[in-house]
């Protein structure tokens, strides 16, 4: 019995010591700090407070989650301490380490930030995301060096990250801007072989050719840049922050709305949009504008003209007016069988943002309600032109030619279809056909600068 009692006393003493340590550590912790600010988005602060409580009671992952939510709303200074707490709890927490480095990065503390990014690159990644973060961390070190105007440091970082397109881009750009075009050339050539439609690398190629004194090659590189649609994301900030931004606030409700927007489930879209509006209350939030657009779209597609007009009246109280609103109003008047008013609003929308759809609506109007073959054909020509340009930029060249040729038939006095027919033939390396098209364009509008530049390029003696 005495032995048991002694054992119990030992256990109690041990427990007391452990409890004391735990309580002391707890008392000496850093309390999670929530920014003292009132935001118009009414959901953000309560959610941050909840995450702060969880961080206060929880572990490194909870503290990281809190830090990420703070980052997502731009509270970089507060996020810094949330991540520091998370790292105090678990120094191997790669997400917290990246978050800390990023917070310092955005706070403009580049040297500290780079030092923290370096630690990211030394941790063992436990997920694909963490592996990607290591690449981004290395890239961010280079970017920070650029921000500190440390050319040598930046160059070293980008070389270490070779193969990562944004790093390759910035390295080649640095080389070009420091008069080392010959060293930039192989990088640009390699990347263009990998990414033939990369507009950034065609841009660098344009600069390279100029630096090498080859104006014709520079002109052609600029033309390729215009034709290219692949974008190398030079800055990972948006990619990183976007999911964090959606952790709190109205964004948590807007994201599901974004997923159903454009589908035919009008009831669901309206339900989600109304949820956001209810949560938003009377305070204006910039990103909640998408909700108004969705409500308007649902009312138009649901063929509820009175609802469209009601929504428009609400939006105009704030001084809003845009092409989408004017087109919706036109649609509403069409549903209410007032075609002249419909056409009037569509024409105003067209002044703001020309679109295939608007031109087609107006073409129908001038075909049936207010017959005017000339105006109808002008709108048909514009619809075909816009469609042709879209096809051209999307590299659907055969369809583009069909649409552009149709545009020339509907309105022979428009120079633009001829210009784009010239562009297609220029890129197909059919110089004679291209030249003929540019000349037709210039016959109609002698001041068409881009057509003139292309004609000059095609007719002047070839050189470098």
């Amino acid at each position, binding site marked *: *019995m005495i032995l*048991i*009692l002694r054992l*119990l*006393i030992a256990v*109690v003493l041990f*427990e007391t010591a452990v*409890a004391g340590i*735990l*309580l002391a550590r*707890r*008392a*000496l912790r*850093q*309390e999670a*700090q929530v*920014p003292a*600010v*009132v*935001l*118009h*988005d009414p959901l953000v602060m309560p959610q941050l407070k909840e995450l702060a409580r969880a961080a*206060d009671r929880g572990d490194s992952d909870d503290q990281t989650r809190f830090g990420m939510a703070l980052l*997502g*709303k*731009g509270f*970089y*200074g507060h996020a*810094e*301490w949330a991540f520091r707490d998370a790292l105090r709890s678990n120094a191997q927490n790669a997400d917290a380490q990246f978050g800390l480095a990023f917070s310092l990065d*955005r*706070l*403009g503390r580049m040297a500290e930030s780079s030092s923290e990014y370096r630690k990211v690159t030394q941790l063992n990644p436990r997920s694909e995301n963490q592996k990607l973060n290591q690449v981004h961390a290395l890239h961010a070190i280079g*970017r920070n060096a*650029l*921000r500190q105007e440390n050319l040598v440091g930046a160059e070293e970082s980008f070389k270490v990250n070779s193969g990562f397109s944004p790093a390759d881009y910035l390295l080649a*750009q640095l080389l070009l801007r420091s008069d080392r075009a010959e060293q930039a050339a192989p990088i640009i050539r390699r990347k263009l072989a990998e990414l033939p439609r990369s507009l950034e690398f065609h*841009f660098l190629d344009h600069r390279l050719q100029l630096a090498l004194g080859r104006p014709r090659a520079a002109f052609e590189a600029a033309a390729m840049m215009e034709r290219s649609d692949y974008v190398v994301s*030079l800055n990972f*900030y*948006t990619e990183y*922050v976007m999911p964090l931004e959606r952790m709190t606030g109205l964004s948590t409700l807007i994201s599901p709305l974004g997923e159903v927007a454009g589908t035919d489930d009008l009831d669901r879209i309206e339900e989600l949009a109304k949820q956001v509006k209810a949560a938003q209350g009377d*305070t*204006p939030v*910039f990103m909640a504008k998408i909700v108004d657009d969705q409500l308007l779209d649902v009312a138009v597609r649901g063929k509820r003209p009175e609802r469209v007009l009601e929504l428009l009246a609400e939006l105009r*109280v*704030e*001084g*809003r*007016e*845009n092409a989408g609103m004017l087109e919706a109003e036109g649609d509403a008047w069409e549903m209410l069988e007032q075609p002249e008013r419909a056409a009037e609003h569509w024409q*105003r929308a067209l*002044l*703001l*943002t020309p679109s295939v759809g608007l031109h087609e609506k107006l073409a129908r109007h001038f075909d049936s309600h207010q017959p005017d073959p000339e105006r109808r054909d002008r709108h048909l020509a514009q619809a075909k032109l816009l469609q042709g340009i879209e096809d051209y930029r999307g590299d659907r060249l055969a369809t583009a030619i069909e649409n552009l040729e149709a545009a020339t038939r509907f309105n022979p006095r428009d120079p633009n279809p001829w210009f784009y027919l010239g562009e297609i033939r220029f890129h197909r390396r059919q110089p004679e056909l291209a030249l003929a098209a540019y000349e037709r364009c210039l016959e109609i509008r*002698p*001041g068409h*600068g*881009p057509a003139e*530049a292309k004609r000059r390029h095609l007719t002047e003696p070839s050189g470098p």
Partner: protein
Amino acid sequence: MLGKFLLWFSLAIAIPVGTAMWLPQVPAWRTPPAIYSGGTSYPASELDFRFQEIGPPFTGLPLITNVQIVDFDDDGQNEIIACDALGNRILIHKRQSDGSWEESVLIADVSVPAHVTVVDIDDDGDLDVIVAVLGNLMPDDGVIGRVELFENRDEGFVRHVILDDVRRVADVQYGDFNGDGKLDLAVAVFGYARGEVLWLENLGDFEFRSHTLLSAPGAIHVPVGDFDQDGDLDIMAIVTQNEEELWGFENQGDGTFVARRLWMTINLDLGGAGLVAADLDGDGDLDLILPAGDNLEDFDAYPQPYHGCYWFENLGNWRFEMRRISDLGGTYAAAVADFDGDGHQDVVLVSLTNDWLGPDNASVIWLQNDGQQNFTPWQIASHPMHLVTVAAGDIDGDGLPDIVAGSLNVRRPHAQAGRISAWVSGQRGESSVLRGER
């Protein structure tokens, strides 16, 4: 013995249970760490500026992209012209006899106007309006920009689309570049991933031929002036996307230009936000002022240590020496005037993205020039926040330069929002920083 056993047994159970229960409730004893702020604030201005909202009360989040002070109707009193990207229109404000301002729509249905240029382009004795059409406020590489010229006629404005099929247009300026007696135009096509600097040759009858001066994204402003003092007009451009560069296009007198890169930094995050031509040192040639603080690519932009204002002193022969004259975080626009009447050109700056968590951080400051180009910053206001454009000129007819600024409310926090705000010069006296509170 049994009593002792039970006591120690109970303690052995109670200590871990109690610790587990009480641990989360233990308050933190440590003083919370100071939260870092990169925000900037300055001593209150000793010049008296009275705050005034221009135009009707507003709700929502206004998006004003440009303001200008100009005597549009030639009545000897300045009006305020503003580009309203929320309503996609150009507004004009006229001062009433009671000092209030009446707002009306000068031009409707222009898609996200970025800048308005008022000039008698057709030489018929009235002022026409040229609008740089951005087409979309948000990043967009689409071919959605235009230059629209609104010819002033007795019956109203007649729209001429003089440049389309280009990316987002941020600025248009004018000058006779080829010496043919007609006003031509310089155009900054900001774009996004692609952009360019153009000049438009006036062919007459509202027809213009475009000429490319530079292919580069992010051209914001294209001030025009005789920078080399050779008797013809040159064009400058600030390029701010991926590459931060200052370009000069030296006119050969006949509309042909020699492009010169005058300055660059490898700091891709500088955030050049505009370019203003002014003779800041009063030596008879045009210098350049670069406000820097555009980080709109971030969801939540934050002041950076290199933000502020840079002065490029014209040393002649196309040499410019750069000097930083302010560290205002998130600086987005600058204007020049002699605010203290000492004969030297001062500078007013506005901030789009200072650290707005600090309630005293500046949104408007002026830099007092002591005549030796030493600039002392004075804070005029800490709100409204999110100021993106500023103009200086006399709006109340007292001969003193006043300040007008516009708010672009696209970033958090969406509080202390403004629309078109004025700070009207008064006598030297007590600070009026707090008077602007709404």
